[in-house]
């Protein structure tokens, strides 16, 4: 089955190459990506730019579109990135998710529809 891992954390500024401590910060992510790529579990993923870069199209039912500055919902924890994984079942997906090298946050695991309409 395919699962999407949606990573919500308090918004933080990620380190950039050259910043002090960048290597130490990146190392567990490199390890996470390598491990799960080698096992074939990792199908894709990405880190999102800060919420300040978000633009939302709001479409009212029966109404028109409005383009808005900002994310869909203002929350304390924001969607910061995602992974798309292949796992045998929910327990396997949760095991991968639990190995995310993040100190805190909410990591939502959702199965993809098996017969997608889109």
């Amino acid at each position, binding site marked *: 089955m395919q699962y999407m891992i949606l990573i919500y954390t308090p918004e933080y500024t990620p380190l950039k190459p050259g910043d002090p401590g960048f290597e130490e910060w990146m190392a567990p992510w490199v390890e996470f990506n390598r491990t799960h790529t080698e096992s074939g579990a990792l199908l894709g993923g990405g880190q999102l730019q800060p919420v300040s870069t978000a633009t939302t199209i709001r479409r009212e039912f029966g109404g028109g579109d409005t383009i808005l500055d900002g994310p869909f919902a203002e929350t304390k924890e924001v969607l910061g990135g995602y992974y798309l994984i292949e796992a045998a*079942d*929910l*327990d396997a997906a*949760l095991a991968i998710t639990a190995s995310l090298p993040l100190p805190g946050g909410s990591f939502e695991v959702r199965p993809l529809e098996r017969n997608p309409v889109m």
Partner: protein
Amino acid sequence: MLALLASRFGLDAADDAVQDALVEALNWRAVPDNPAAWLYTVARNRAIDRIRRDAVARRRTLDAGADLAVLHPSTHDPYDTEEEDDMIVDHSEVGDEQLRLMLLCCHPALARDAQVALTLRLVGGLTTDEIAAAFLLPEATLAQRIVRAKRKIRDAGIPLSVPAALDERIDALLGVLYLVFNEGYLSRGDAAGARVDLMEESIRLAIRLMGLLPGNAEVEGLVALQLYVRARTDARFAGGELVLLEQQDRSLWDLELIGQADAVLAAAMSRGTPGPYQLQAVIAGYHSNARTASDTDWPAIASVYGRLLEATPSPVVALNHAVAVAMADGAPAGLRLLDELSGLDDYHLYWAARGELLARAGAATRRRPLCGARSTSL
């Protein structure tokens, strides 16, 4: 049995089929030599009947396989009943199908109320309206809860397997059984005779679990705890009124059950891995083995409450600890502990206990009964 059937036919179909078989079992004229095997055969045939009956209608609207198969959603065809499906292959030490079904019902991806409903429905075999009546919920609410839970198991791919974190899952399962038991215990005063006896149901399931997980001290602890409490239940009500432990007619206590509880608890304690259920059972054991209220070994009970408080810190346990200390060392000692407690302002038993201890300490003039404070001490 349900687990075996579920592995072949999917959860919904197996669930219905077992109900059919149980209904048929009510018509037994003579008990078959091997009721379990007979029940399985009937249920299996019923499952096949039911699937054949439903197959035509369902195939029109549903992708074959995706609807029923919980275990192998993409490859499993529940309508292909001729072929022998693989049983679940699992090489872990705990290989019992029934245990896996119990553990599945308590998967942390399911909400606690869904865990309770599923356990009673799928493992306990209660009907939806029985569970609804037991928890005083509309049947539609309960039915929907079960449907949603089954749907999540299927759609999210919750596996029917022994989890890596087995101890945590067993904890969840014990928590569900304990909750069911307490629901039954606390509802004993209700006149609603139609309610399923949740205490009996919980005891039955816990004893079954004890057979599935031999040597697990906490499972034994829960069984012992439940047996002790059950043994005293008949004395808990007189003429529809709640009778507190101190005033109960102890000749009504079921000594045979207490003896069984003693034996189970002794086995548990011999394993040297104490836990919250064993500690609660020890406390219940001191009460159950006191021939009169004044024989109660309060110093021992206070000491075990102290250990329980260390293991599972909670204001309610702290309250019980304070009451036990008051009984052992006098009201002022208990009051000192109560004064340190916080978070119980809305808990009526806190005020009841406080009033009682103040009365006993002579700080209040009007004596009030210890309103149920000790009824919380199982």
